[in-house]
């Protein structure tokens, strides 16, 4: 069985991992090939802060909350393993701040030690009247992705530096199942009006005295359009903007200025920090993640595709749950294939 994965961000790599984990014993041979024109450290997953947290509210999408929880618990299980640091996984506590009273977030029971902020704590953040404290996980793309690639390479998964222009192209070369993890550019393979870039720009800053993440939520400005400060293992990620429909991957001075000023207001000690670099990434935004099978007719042939894209700003947060679900869908295809094979006897 030949499986082609399009995309080598966290979604592509983790989906390849889940499929290998679940089926390499059953399906022999199982050939998995990853095709991408961007690899770590240049993917969207690499530039992200690596902070596990979904959007505040899942708006009834219980499936995504389930996948988020699965991912959190999965990453947490590695915490005491010797690989944790190589994987870029560690715990960090911090503050979610709101400008007005708000219901508890959907992830309150997933994270560790979730609680309301006390009045004294809120005094530390003028302008914010409500909020929560919890301990969450960090999973830094720049460590996690190389670890995943290593894991896959050791198990015989092959990588190809090649931009794929159509599912057909892969099917022609012999791929029996295609896993589409092409993120924000999925529309180039198959138009999807629901998929849009959610442009984000961040500053990487040297401020090692900051030991908590701080995320602000302004319900008028929208998700990620108000300041956030997320310390990493080396530098602090400062954001943010969320510009729907903006395809520019260039850093903008205007955004830089806005992000910096707002972050310094939130955390005055940043004023003395050294700014190391800016980075821009395009979140693959969609109303909900597209995680489903599609059988595409191409002449006499049926191309089996599993779509796994559109994870917005929560790709790292949800990746494992989605990868496992994609593997489950792969299992469905296997059952069908065997059935079809049997019917030929």
């Amino acid at each position, binding site marked *: 069985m030949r499986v082609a994965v399009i995309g080598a961000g966290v979604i592509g790599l983790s989906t390849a991992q889940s499929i290998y984990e679940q089926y390499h014993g059953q399906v022999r041979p199982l050939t998995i090939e990853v095709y991408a024109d961007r690899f770590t450290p240049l993917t969207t997953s690499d530039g992200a802060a690596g902070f596990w947290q979904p959007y505040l509210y899942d708006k009834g999408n219980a499936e995504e909350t389930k996948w988020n929880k699965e991912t959190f618990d999965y990453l947490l299980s590695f915490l005491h*393993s010797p690989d944790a640091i190589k994987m870029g996984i560690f715990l960090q506590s911090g503050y979610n701040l709101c400008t007005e009273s708000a219901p508890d977030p959907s992830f309150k029971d997933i994270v560790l030690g979730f609680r309301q902020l006390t009045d004294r704590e809120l005094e530390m953040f003028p302008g914010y009247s409500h909020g929560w404290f919890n301990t969450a996980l960090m999973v830094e793309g720049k460590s996690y992705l190389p670890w995943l690639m290593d894991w896959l390479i050791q198990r015989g998964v092959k990588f190809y530096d090649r931009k794929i222009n159509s599912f057909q192209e892969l099917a022609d070369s012999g791929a029996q199942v295609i896993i589409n993890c092409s993120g924000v550019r999925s529309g180039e393979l198959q138009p999807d009006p629901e998929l849009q870039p959610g442009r984000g720009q961040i500053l990487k800053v040297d401020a090692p*005295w900051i030991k908590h993440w701080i995320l602000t939520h302004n319900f008028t400005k929208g998700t990620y359009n108000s300041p956030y400060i997320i310390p990493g*293992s080396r530098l602090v990620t400062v954001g943010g903007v969320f510009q729907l429909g903006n395809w520019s991957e260039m850093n903008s001075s205007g955004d830089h200025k806005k992000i910096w000023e707002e972050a310094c207001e939130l955390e005055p000690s940043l004023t003395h920090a050294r700014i190391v670099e800016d980075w821009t990434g395009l979140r693959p935004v969609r109303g909900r993640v597209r995680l489903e099978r599609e059988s595409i007719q191409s002449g006499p042939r049926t191309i089996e595709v599993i779509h796994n894209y559109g994870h917005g700003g929560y790709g790292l947060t949800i990746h494992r749950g989605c990868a496992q679900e994609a593997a489950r869908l792969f299992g469905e295809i296997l059952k069908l294939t065997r059935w079809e094979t049997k019917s030929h006897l």
Partner: protein
Amino acid sequence: MTPLLTDIQLERQRRWFKESFDHLLAIAQSSTCGETGVILSSGYQVFKEVPAERRPYWAEYVLGFRDLSDREMKRFPGHKFGQAFTTVKCECTTYLPWLEKRFRKAGGEIQQGKVSDLQHLADSYDIVVNCSGLGARSLVGDATVHPVRGQILKFHAPWVKNFIRDGDGHTYIYPGVNSVTLGGTRQAGDWRLQVDAGDREGILERCFRLDPSLRGGRVLGEWVGLRPGRESPRVEVEQLKTPGGREVPLVHNYGHGGWGVSLAWGTALDALGLVRQALNQRPPMARL
């Protein structure tokens, strides 16, 4: 760990702690915390056995103090009870130079030298404030002051963002600005300033057990300090008789044990009050 204190002593200690904490918290919140070495730090205190005192006196003064849930305790096998809170960490290697700068800017003078005779010194001053720590044992003859030896390691593990300490006080992991402090030891009566290899191995082994991710780090340095142990800090005034026949107030502020940073500002404020009082009560004297 905290010695049994009388009600008055406890009241004073609470006030010292609260004032010190609020003072440091204000600095941690300001824009200067990069220069001062004072940072906000959240983390856990865990106990192998449920302690008799489940809620220490300082619980209301730190931020967000709460007990750990069963789920959180799973991270600490071998421990039955735990607490989480947010406090401040004050790195004196940065904080002291910053304080000294402020002191000099306000007109203060620093003279380097060892004082062995307080009475002689007092002849040249209107008031003396004794902050000699462990040295008070010989300087003022306070035999209750004794060293409590502490060994630590400075460790590189920048992914460690939360502190963890064992409630017995012998094992702690304190992430600082540029390194993580791993400790420790509490050896009463031990004057050794040299690093002890056995202590080092013990500290690393216990810290690695508390946070296995530390194994991915490396040692940057080691250090030994002698805590100025005493039943409780001595903050009081007495009168010194100088060789010249004068009476000079001597305000004591020493004996903070392992609670120097935690009580410094509060005890300093008390000492300041004693200084003011003493200077106001001094009868005007003609200087001939």
